[in-house]
């Protein structure tokens, strides 16, 4: 009975852990304890003291600060080890329950070392300033700040302290939650904002005015990695009376990675991208507003999820947008966007998706609906990528109540895409559930140089279903003599 209780406890603890792979280590500990109890004379030898202080501090850096501090009671050597840890993880339960004096002790221990990273998930506004100021004084390099949702907007919103903007040691800044982003006027200060910042991630913050984001970004001299999510609720502080657009001006010459999600932004905005060093561009949103992108000569990979195609010049806007991306080597496209392209092409649109002459890898991902006809959409895009070598699908099939299929009559029937005859060697379908066999069938039929078709089954399928699909696929005719089909 006691053993069952212990095992159950170990299991719940394991489930609660942040790092799930260590499930088995918990079981090992249980068996060790059991062994210890059985041979009480046998002393478990000291396994840890041979490690130097810096190693022990490194181990403690993976624990929430609360647990790291607990170790100070282990032995006299461990008393101050936690102060050597260069990372502070102050989570909600810790910050909720401790006194101010204790927080001071944690932030400023007797011999404060340089703090590399501060992560706080803070429900108490009063603590945010204190933690951030302490971190800046200790030369922090990475700040990860999460501020939870509160009910009273104007009383509870925390303006990000000005000292953060001018911190010389900060390299990574991650902001999530209801901070008010009000960058100081850079013209009035002599030093530049964020002088060392390379990575910036912002989501669910409030913007003080229409230019909050556009004054911030060009001011960062070293910025390389920018990930922003903007939604309507972030603009609650803006003066909605004035007919101003919210400006997202990404004019950053050093930027290499840009992830932009404005899919929940209905308020009109202006997006301008001019990033000559950009290598990776992930865009999720619609192009209805004022969108300009230019100067992307080094772009290598792009992920696109463009929705809301129900306005007249969608195809023209998409064509212009994709035109800047036409030299990329690798692309991921939401299947819905491909489907919308098909719809617009069939309705006699004058505009065509540009040719992607250097594209060697293409992936279609996302949820797709039963009434769509993915093969036509895929084929249309394949025609624009003559040198494609690798094709990947990661699609979730969504059935709907009315199971009809809409057959889009194209302007003219599609030729067999050139890449299928000459370049496509690998095709991988991840999470295959047996729907839309047509994709697999057509690729096997049309590709002349295909070497590998790999099907990874959706984990929901049972083995009977997998066998049925396996048999069916093996019967499909293959044009390529060297084609191997692999199932996972």
């Amino acid at each position, binding site marked *: 009975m006691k053993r069952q209780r212990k095992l159950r406890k170990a299991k719940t*603890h394991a489930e609660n852990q942040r790092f799930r792979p260590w499930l088995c280590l918990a079981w*090992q500990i249980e068996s060790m304890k059991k062994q210890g109890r059985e041979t009480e004379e046998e002393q478990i*030898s000291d*396994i*840890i003291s041979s490690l130097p202080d810096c*190693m022990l501090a*490194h181990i403690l850096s993976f624990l929430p600060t609360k647990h790291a501090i607990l170790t100070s*009671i282990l*032995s*006299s050597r461990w008393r101050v080890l936690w102060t050597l840890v260069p990372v502070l993880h102050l989570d909600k339960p810790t910050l909720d329950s401790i006194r101010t004096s204790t927080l001071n002790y944690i932030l400023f221990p007797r011999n404060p070392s340089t703090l590399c990273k501060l992560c706080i998930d803070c429900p108490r506004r009063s603590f945010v300033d204190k933690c951030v100021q302490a971190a800046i004084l200790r030369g922090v390099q990475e700040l990860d700040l999460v501020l939870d949702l509160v009910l009273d907007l104007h009383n509870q919103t925390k303006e990000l302290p000005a000292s953060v903007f001018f911190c010389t040691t900060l390299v990574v800044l991650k902001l999530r939650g209801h901070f008010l982003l009000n960058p100081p006027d850079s013209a009035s200060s002599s030093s530049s904002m964020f002088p060392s910042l390379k990575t910036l991630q912002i989501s669910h913050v409030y913007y003080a005015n229409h230019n909050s984001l556009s004054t911030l970004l060009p001011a960062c001299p070293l910025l390389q990695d920018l990930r922003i999510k903007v939604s309507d609720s972030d603009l609650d502080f803006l003066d909605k009376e004035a007919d101003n657009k919210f400006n997202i001006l990404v004019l950053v010459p050093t930027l290499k990675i840009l992830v932009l999600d404005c899919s929940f932004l209905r308020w009109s905005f202006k997006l301008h991208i001019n990033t000559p060093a950009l290598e990776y561009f992930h865009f999720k949103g619609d192009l209805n507003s004022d969108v300009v992108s230019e100067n992307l000569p080094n772009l290598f990979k792009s992920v696109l999820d463009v929705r809301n195609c129900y306005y007249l010049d969608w195809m023209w806007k998409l064509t212009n947008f994709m035109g800047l991306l036409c030299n990329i080597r690798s692309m991921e496209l939401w299947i819905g966007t491909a489907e919308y392209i098909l719809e617009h092409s069939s309705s006699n649109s004058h505009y065509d998706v540009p040719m992607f002459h250097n594209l060697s890898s293409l992936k279609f991902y996302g949820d797709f609906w039963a009434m769509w006809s993915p093969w036509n959409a895929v084929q249309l895009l394949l025609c624009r990528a003559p040198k494609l070598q690798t094709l990947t699908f990661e699609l979730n099939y969504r059935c709907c109540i009315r199971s009809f299929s809409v057959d889009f009559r194209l302007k003219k029937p599609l030729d067999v895409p050139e890449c299928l005859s000459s370049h496509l060697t690998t095709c991988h379908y991840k999470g295959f559930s047996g729907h839309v066999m047509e994709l697999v069938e057509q690729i096997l039929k049309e590709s002349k140089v295909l070497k590998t078709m790999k099907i990874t089954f959706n984990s929901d399928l049972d083995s009977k279903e997998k066998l049925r699909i396996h048999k069916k696929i093996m019967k499909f005719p293959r044009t390529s003599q060297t084609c191997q089909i692999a199932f996972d």
Partner: protein
Amino acid sequence: MKFCAVKQYFDDENNNNITSGASTTMIPLPNVESHPLAILITYCKKHLKIKANNADNKKETEKEMEQYEQELLKKVMPQELTELILAANYLNFKEALDFFCRAVASAIQNKSIEFVRKFFGLESDFELGEEEKLREEFAWSFEGVDED
């Protein structure tokens, strides 16, 4: 090269213009036992293989690595973890070092002091009353800790 210490050795050798051109070079690693070294080599090979298989997809790489790490931990005894940490540190193999340190950290996370002492094989060397004082001071950190 993942084993940065070994890479350093090769770079130094090249700088000294070794003309023998032998394909197998003996590299002295005085601070590493053979058993942890074998585990680290296997870990490294697996890591590189998984990375190559999922060149485009970072999420897939992480998922597969997690599965492999789970299997690996089943075979490793807690006593061996110290040796592995020291070996990974000497070889300057960051990923393995972080992995094994995380394993130790999660083994002691949210556990009582008595449990952690037993796990590490430590004995309390505080003077009388000193430990009680510390426990009082940090009473707030004991909330939510698993009972032994």
